[in-house]
């Protein structure tokens, strides 16, 4: 079997959780796989990460270059292209860097590319059989990926178990980035605006999604939150529509919340949204679509139209007071 590589995402000298998940994913393709980690970056932070992942990977390729200090995908892609063997199997997380970096790399390497993989069934002949989801998680598909000329597979963060064994005792090998000139220049990261309410500190969240249908209907959500003593949060479409501010958005592209109780109203429950709900809260989902993925992750589900159900709930709570 071809050589396995894992691309390690890191920040401030610490490897991302995905670093250990990629190992379990590789073992699902080939249980005897020896996986080489690749870390790109610069200076002391990079050294720290390389040493950290050497505990889990038998070999770590460290590509140190000032141009890689911030992971600008256009630069990282060149460094990887200058180092990876063309027919390798490269595993990486499906995150905002992964989406920026790997579709293009697969073209340059002439490798097969499959993104956002949620499970791996194994190898059949020259193909890897993978599982993905489509239509916002409403249906799954089996996908076959011909690895004859190599393949790049990005994995949904958090779905593969982290390999915590840390018994690799690996070595760090320095690699040269090569020519990494690029036509895109990283400038800065602008931090998210802080809102009037810090939902990351809320114990009870009433979170609203597309099911609210109209901005005027948000009133019923605010009334329920007031009756419960909760704060109002939302999913992405509500912020895209500019009905609530970004500081209310829960999800991987919004905020990570850790409430005790999470009431998801008219939210389908995409993995990007649920990725922002941590701390194992008691989740109640109200949705008129019985097939909404939210019902798989909620503790309690109610199949109702929130526009009718929420006012009744608010009224009953207020009457009971």
């Amino acid at each position, binding site marked *: 079997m071809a050589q396995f590589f894992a691309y390690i995402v890191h920040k401030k000298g610490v490897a991302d959780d995905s670093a250990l998940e990629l190992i379990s994913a590789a073992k699902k393709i080939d249980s005897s796989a020896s996986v080489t980690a690749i870390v790109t970056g610069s200076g002391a932070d990079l050294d720290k990460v390389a040493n950290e992942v050497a505990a889990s990977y038998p070999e770590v390729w460290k590509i140190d270059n000032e141009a890689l200090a911030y992971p600008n995908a256009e630069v990282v892609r060149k460094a990887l292209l200058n180092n990876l063997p063309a027919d390798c199997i490269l595993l990486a997380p499906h995150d905002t860097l992964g989406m920026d970096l790997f579709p293009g790399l697969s073209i340059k390497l002439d490798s097969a590319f499959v993104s956002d993989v949620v499970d791996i069934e194994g190898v059949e002949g020259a193909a890897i059989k993978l599982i993905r989801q489509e239509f916002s998680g409403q249906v799954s598909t089996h996908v076959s990926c011909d690895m004859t000329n190599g393949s790049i597979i990005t994995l949904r963060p958090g779905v593969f178990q982290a390999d915590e064994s840390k018994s690799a005792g690996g070595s760090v090998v320095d690699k040269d980035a090569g020519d990494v000139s690029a036509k895109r220049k990283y400038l800065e990261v602008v931090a998210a605006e802080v809102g009037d309410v810090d939902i990351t500190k809320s114990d009870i969240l009433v979170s609203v999604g597309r099911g609210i249908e109209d901005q005027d209907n948000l009133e019923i959500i605010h009334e329920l939150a007031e009756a419960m003593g909760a704060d109002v949060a939302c999913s992405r479409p509500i912020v895209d529509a500019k009905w609530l501010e970004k500081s209310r958005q829960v999800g991987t592209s919004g905020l990570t919340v850790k409430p005790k109780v999470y009431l998801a109203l008219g939210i389908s429950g995409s993995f990007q949204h649920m990725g922002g709900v941590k701390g194992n809260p008691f989740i109640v989902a109200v949705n008129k679509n019985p097939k909404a993925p939210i019902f798989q992750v909620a503790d309690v589900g*109610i199949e109702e139209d929130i526009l009718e159900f929420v006012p009744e709930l608010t009224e009953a709570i207020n009457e009971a007071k």
Partner: protein
Amino acid sequence: MEILVCVKRVPDTSENEIEVDSDGKDIERDDLVYSVNEWDNYAVEEAIQIKDKVGGSVTVVTVGDQESEEVLRREMAMGADNGILLEDDAFEGSDGKGVATILKAAVEKGKYDLILTGAQADDGAAQIGGMLAALLDLPYASLVNSIDVSDEKKLKVGREIEGGNQEMNEIEMPCVLSIQTGINEPRYVGIRGIRKVASVEIPTYGASDLGLGSDAVGEGAAKVKRLDYFVPELGEGAEMLEGSTEEKVAKLIELLKAKGGIK
């Protein structure tokens, strides 16, 4: 600025429950409501806003069947100047690289300063923009949620990254950008607007017009193949509350009180 926007006609997941058909080869397509992929609609709006600021033209292109023409007309009713339909039986079964290869051939028939795609579509792969850029050897940025066109040669673009933060970049033109939802507020398109562009001619190109053989596109060239659709064996999932609305409300209040959900 000459702008090309790649769009796709997709089942509208906010209007439909997606179900698998009886033999698991496809989703149940009868009675599905189709529309333009949401991300692509933001991309077209952004292109029109850029054109309104600095001049030029907006062309929308899609790889699809005859019915995809309605999506091109809808985007032309928004303000795109031209539409191009890329249609051929030989395109069927193309993987991401195949679709990007078809688009690349169409890009090379024109001359564009800026090429936009949606950040992702119905299959959630988020791959076409990056592949197209690499095939064209152009710089790329994904998940773009702001574009500043004050310079003629390069753009200042914001990318949406984790935690609601925004990564700012400078990118030389020509370039390819994939557009994230929320970058703007796409304008409403009425029936009247669509009628106005109903008779505008939309050129259609097939494989031979684009110089594409079966070694480059279609099922034969695809290294990645979807084998089936299925609904996974799920865990127990949520405990569904049953009964009348009144009964459900009462049960829920009881549960919320027990879990500290009502202060």
